[in-house]
């Protein structure tokens, strides 16, 4: 993507296609959008997450960091319903997510991207985004067979919305009918983001959104994340390794190590926290 397109994206006023959620200040509960208490996940004898507590304030960008194997992705999988927690609670806008199937979690408005890009490879770009919109569409099989007016209209609206999202993340119009697998790497990441956004999520989970990107692309993605939060009134939970991204974009940071939360706070606090430095660089670095 060219820089020119990025700037064009920022100028665009973005509105949500369906009833826009009230602005964060007027939300029914100004409390956290997601509350996690005592979350524990065991695989046999291995404890991947142990008693994790954290909240995500509505409208914020929160990052989870930690060395490889710290349990970050396991945490994501519990938030999206892929794994059932062994213990603990996850509450999203007052609704418990424990025991829900992943598609039910998606319906509530939680969407995610993946560390290793996982697009629907042999589907077109626009079809990928439309699958993301699946939960916001209603057409049933018999309605589709009859090709009812409501189905056609819904389809048209959804395509329109999908095009807007593709434009928002900076994908070129002529890629629309291209198969997802034929896109360049950076564009595949953008497409994954567009697919997640098509859900019209309240909470967006990003798993290393800048993995494998060069510094220029990373900067564009960071800008895009900040812009999305601003314009779509999203709450974003981020897993990231790139400290520049984490420090630049997030308001709060939670640090995991060996499945436990070892620190939580503002970026500056985390930067100075000896336990964090120890987890990342070893004991010597922390004491010296």
């Amino acid at each position, binding site marked *: 993507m060219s820089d*020119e397109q990025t700037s*064009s994206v920022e*100028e*665009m*006023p*973005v*509105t*949500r*296609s*369906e009833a826009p959620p009230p602005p964060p200040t007027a939300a029914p509960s100004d409390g956290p959008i997601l509350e996690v208490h005592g979350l524990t996940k065991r695989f046999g004898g291995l404890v991947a997450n142990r008693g994790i507590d954290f909240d995500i304030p509505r409208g914020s960008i929160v990052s989870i960091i930690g060395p490889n194997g710290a349990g970050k992705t396991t945490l994501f999988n519990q938030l*999206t*319903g*892929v794994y059932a927690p062994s213990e603990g609670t996850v509450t999203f806008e007052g609704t418990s997510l424990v025991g829900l*199937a*992943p*598609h039910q*979690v*998606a*319906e509530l408005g939680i*969407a*995610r991207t*993946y560390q290793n890009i*996982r*697009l*629907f*490879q*042999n*589907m*077109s770009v*626009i*079809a990928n985004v*439309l*699958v*993301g919109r*699946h*939960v916001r*569409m*209603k*057409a*049933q*099989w018999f309605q*589709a*067979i009859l*090709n009812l007016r409501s*189905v056609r209209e*819904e*389809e048209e*609206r959804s395509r*329109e*919305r999908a095009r*807007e999202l593709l*434009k*928002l993340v900076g994908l*070129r*119009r*002529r890629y629309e*009918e291209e198969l997802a697998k034929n896109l360049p790497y950076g564009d595949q990441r953008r497409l994954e983001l567009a*697919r997640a956004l098509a*859900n019209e999520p309240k909470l967006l989970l990003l798993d290393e959104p800048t993995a494998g990107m060069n510094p220029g692309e990373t900067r564009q993605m960071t800008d895009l994340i900040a812009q999305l939060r601003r314009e779509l009134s999203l709450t974003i939970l981020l897993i990231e390794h790139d400290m520049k991204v984490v420090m630049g974009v997030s308001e709060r940071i939670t640090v995991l190590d060996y499945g436990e939360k070892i620190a939580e706070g503002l970026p500056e606090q985390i930067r100075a926290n000896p336990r964090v430095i120890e987890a990342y660089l070893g004991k010597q670095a922390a004491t010296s």
Partner: protein
Amino acid sequence: MPAMTISAWLRRAARLGVVAGVALIYLSLVGLVGAFEERDVVTDVLKLGTLMLAAVAVIAGYRAALPPKTAAAPPGVMRLAAGVLAGTVAGAFVGALLLLAATPIDLQTVFVRLNAALIAFLSFDAESPVVGAALQIGLNAVLGGVGAVLVLLPDRFRRPLVFATLAVALVSMAEPYVRPRLDQLDMDPIADFLYSGHGLTVAASVVVFVLVTAVAVAWAPARSQVDRRLAVLPAERRRSVRFTSFILIGLLVLALPLITGQFISQVLVLVGLYLLLALGLNIVVGYAGLLDLGYVAFFAVGAYLMAILTSADGPLGAPMVAIAGEQGAFFVALPIVMVGAALTGLMIGAPVLRLRGDYLAIVTLGFGEIARILFLSDALEPWLGGVQGIIGIPSPLPQRVDFALGPIEISWSGPQVIFYPIVLFCLLAAVVAYRLAGSRVGRAWNAMREDEEVAEITGVNTVNYKLLAFAMGAGLGCLSGALFAIQLGSVFPGSFNVLVSITVLAIIILGGMGSIPGVILGALVLIGLPELLREFAEYRLLVYGGVLVAMMLLRPEGLIPNRGRQRELHEQDDEDEQYAHEAGEDVAKPVVA
């Protein structure tokens, strides 16, 4: 791109020659050549067996001369040389076989088809095996060269030549069916001109070849001109043009049974039944990616349910006939059959929800067999008739339809009548499949096929959509079974073996997974052609296997891949906007939903 070295290029050609040589020997020893030997394509000039062997060498030469994918194409001479080399190597294999057969070693005890007739055929009746071998090498070298020349020819010549050759072969093979039909229609002179009794006459071959070549040569420029004219028409007119062409094709299809007569109508009925099955299985395998090898179960359920509901011989004593009479029973029973089959689909789908890929294939294969054995079983004999099956299924269709329009009298009978409902149901099934494919439902299935876990996290209820795919597939498959039942008037468990499942799957793979035009072509090729080529019968499965392997290697996406569909659907999208975007103009447009 760097050019390949000469030795690498020739090694590649020789490798292809080895493959072709093995194929030639295989075709000869397995008996296919012998089976086709009796049949002339062109009377006393070209035998079908010769054509088949020649095709192998030509294809080898063609592929050897194709430019490599990863390097620059060598000069024309080198490509011609590669074709000749591939043919020579292939011929050497046959030559070696001939020499080996001339030694005292008794090969025929193992290769029973390697008899004197085959050897005489392969050595062109030459007395000495050495001469025969030399002839084989020389001829195959020439044929390889012909293949290479085909590559070097521009598209507009190559296609017509290939088409014309295929057309001559097809017209010739159709003799046993076309000739009697022409006689019936009082067109004996045409019949006598075309056929000698065992193959096309020489004159007719030339006419067919020239005619098809001329049409094909004229076709490409004519077509592009039509396309250009169409493109400038307004959308409204374009739609009416398309509508008209649909009507014309429709009329042609409707007239087919009348033109072609009883036997070919019977073949078309069979093609239609398999097409209906393939459209149903395409939903399960092509759209949802669930490899179901037990699809025959739904075919059987459709047929048996129809039999039970409408046959006086059945256990219920034809309840539907009591309600709606012999003519109406089918229509009253059909919705019940479809619901019943869809429920069977759910029953088979539910236990295999957690299985994927190979495991799913094996379990469904088992289900298909269980179904067949249940229909065969003694325990269920009071209801399903065991080996005897159920007979006396009334047909809603008349045996014969006569129609007089002034002096012209037209009559349909037997397969010519049932052809029409089958076409109607195929059309319905195709529309259902097409609409589902382009909808939220079809996309959810595709997403599941691509990555089930991500589909679920993205919001697709994968359990429900899997069951839906099984139920929809079953619902369409049972239609074929119900039509099969009324066509035969009886059902027997023997009709529902695993080969049906495999054949239907082969149709989908050959045509192109998820592609409706592909499935239609696949059914015509795999069901229609073998019926025309009765010599095939014994080798049908061998040919199916060969076709599937070749497809997987050369063209895994099928003959008519499922692509460009979305484009087709949205051709009215103003291209202007796209170009404007490229120029950076639509930036100013507000994005409002």
